[in-house]
């Protein structure tokens, strides 16, 4: 009897972790993993204009990667977005955080204000920035004109050369606060005696930034860059509501391209291929980036 009780207890102890994970796992598998897997399956069949024509293997993939310049262009735009997001919010965010980590009044105020754009719905963010860029009354052009730079004023979102750059500024706007927040708290964890020592050695603040701040932030940097990468690869709402990929595909990203493929051209399996490729790329690159830090997820 006692034995049975102990058996039961032991079983409970063994089953407990799984039972606790179960609710999350059920919701997660049904509504996230299953659709992702289905996407892969759809990408292996031919299903266009409502007509199902069976398994066709990797034909969709080869067609998309080898013979679809628009897809490649979209992918390149996603990657450019990554670059721009690293260039502006990550770098500026680091500078701001380093500034705030020093002796600054109103640190809380600043870091709070910078975070606000992160809380804005992307649909609203893009509306606001579209108005910023309006060629007729938008503040950007007005500012340029009042500064005597009227030759630079233009329809920013309407010119192929500048549209992606201009739009990514909206993405940067929503992303900056997050970078500042993470960098700042990471910096506050840096041992202040390091800076004191550097100061005693007569190092300039620029030097100590590069020799103390940046190295001690290595992990955080990897995290932020990876996060920026994921955000950029997922970008949809901003582009969709602002330019829908225009002008002439200058801001087309995989998501908007997929949206067109599925909802207008009715190419279900081909659209699934586009998002499957996207998912693979993000997973692989993230895995590579996380790999050296894999110990973090383990219990020391």
């Amino acid at each position, binding site marked *: 009897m006692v034995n049975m009780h102990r058996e039961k207890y032991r079983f409970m102890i063994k089953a407990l972790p799984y039972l606790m994970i179960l609710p999350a796992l059920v919701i997660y598998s049904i509504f996230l993993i299953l659709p992702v897997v289905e996407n892969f399956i759809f990408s292996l069949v031919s299903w266009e204009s409502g007509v199902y024509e069976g398994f066709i293997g990797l034909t969709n993939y080869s067609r998309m990667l080898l013979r679809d310049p628009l897809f490649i262009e979209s992918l390149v735009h996603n990657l450019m977005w990554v670059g721009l997001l690293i260039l502006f919010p990550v770098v500026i965010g680091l500078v701001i955080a380093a500034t705030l980590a020093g002796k600054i009044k109103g640190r809380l105020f600043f870091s709070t204000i910078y975070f606000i754009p992160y809380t804005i719905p992307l649909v609203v963010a893009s509306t606001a920035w579209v108005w910023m860029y309006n060629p*007729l009354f938008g503040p950007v052009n007005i500012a340029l004109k009042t500064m005597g730079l009227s030759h630079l004023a233009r*329809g920013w*979102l*309407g010119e192929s050369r500048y549209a992606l750059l201009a739009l990514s500024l909206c993405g940067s706007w929503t992303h900056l606060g997050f970078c500042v927040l993470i960098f700042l708290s990471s910096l506050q964890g840096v041992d202040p005696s390091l800076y004191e020592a550097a100061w005693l050695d007569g190092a300039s603040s620029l030097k100590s930034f590069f020799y103390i701040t940046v190295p001690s932030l290595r992990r955080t940097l990897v995290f932020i860059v990876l996060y920026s990468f994921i955000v950029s690869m997922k970008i949809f709402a901003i582009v969709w509501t602002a330019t829908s990929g225009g002008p002439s595909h200058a801001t087309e990203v995989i998501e908007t391209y997929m949206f067109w493929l599925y909802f207008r051209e009715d190419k279900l399996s081909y659209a699934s291929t586009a998002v499957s490729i996207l998912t693979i790329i993000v997973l692989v690159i993230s895995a590579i980036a996380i790999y050296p830090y894999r110990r973090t997820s383990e219990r020391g």
Partner: protein
Amino acid sequence: MNSQKKRQFGMLVMCGTAVVLSFGLLTASVIAQEKMILTVWDQFGISGFSAAGPAAEKLEQEFEAKYPNIEIVRSFFSSPAIRTVLKAALNTGEQPDFWYTWPASAWLDARARAGYLADLTEAARENGWLDMWPTPLTKRCMLNGRIYGMPFEEDFAGVYYNRDLFDKLGLSEPSTYDEFLDICGKIKSAGLIPLAFGNRGLAQYHARHQITVFTGLTMTRGEFEEILFGERRWDDPKFVEGLRLFKGVADRGFYNEGFNAVGYGEANALFLGGRAAMNITGTWFIEDFVNKAEFNLDMFFLPPLRRGSLPALFIGEGSQWEVSSRLPVAKKEAAIKYLDFLLSDEALPTWVEYGVLPIGKKVDWAAQDVAPVVKEFFGEGKKLMNKGAGIYDMVTSFPPNFTYYMRSNLGAALDGTISIDKFISELQREWDEAKKMGTLWSPGEVPK
């Protein structure tokens, strides 16, 4: 309470719940059987959202009063969104019973080819719907000689203008294209924007609406139909000439600067706000323009290149009513009944009262209680169409790949990012591809 009693009580509660639940379900299913529910998706909005909302709500109630065993369940979408949502719904079999969507022609054909649409040819014959529409519009809802949809609103496009501004500058409606350009020049030198134009974002329709209007100056409907259904090509000199007229207006700076960066709605706001004197667009905005313009709103059709020929006309039909092919017979009949009611003379006053302007040969615009500009646009538009003027709109008449190319690159052709020649040859390439895929619009002949 001891444990046995507790258990008994529990059983009792459970049985009670079960009885109540099953009874409830039973009643619900009986009620459901008695009332036939017809799900309808449209774009009319709800009251407070758009002018058309209350009309649709009122007609729904009137119909339900007339046929108490049919219940209409309406959902509405914005005009771009309905295409998206309906597509997903049709692909997965979760479509409504009856809907009002766009576009027609090649897009409707695609829905019909996939077997999503009920054939309405017989119903149209029986209910006399065929007599209601001009042939070009019926054709837009057809595939290979069968009718799969019913048009509803008539779309013409022309030039709206701000009469107050014209008067102030001493201008009057032009009667030739050169006069039109002259007027544009005068407005521009007065420091105003001659023409509002917005070509950014999802709704890059404005450019394609206008290319239709400009091509209407250089091509007859017959010639245009030869491109659509025959062997004529897109590098046809007459089409290229139309495109060059359009680009000429852009090159002269008669549009607001940075038109590729302005949204369609923003362009309309420029016009309604009195900043731009004219706006080349269509009747689909007429209710809004009449309601919102704080100036004397008037219109003319883009005048011909040579005096005496017909002005340019754009023909479209807005959206059409379609019935799902997946309905049981009784439900299909109910849907047809509702459609007939919406198209009937009985419903017409309600539509017009709330500012929805349905088409049909029998609507006498002169007799309607509407703004003069509405009478002119529809009345004159219809006369011109009957004289043979007008070509099909270039937003909705072509297959998806062709439309996608044109949508994405017309703006670039206008601002010179890509050359006209390249644009035209790419158009032709997309057209050939669509032909190969069999996705061209193929209406066949209108049944008698």
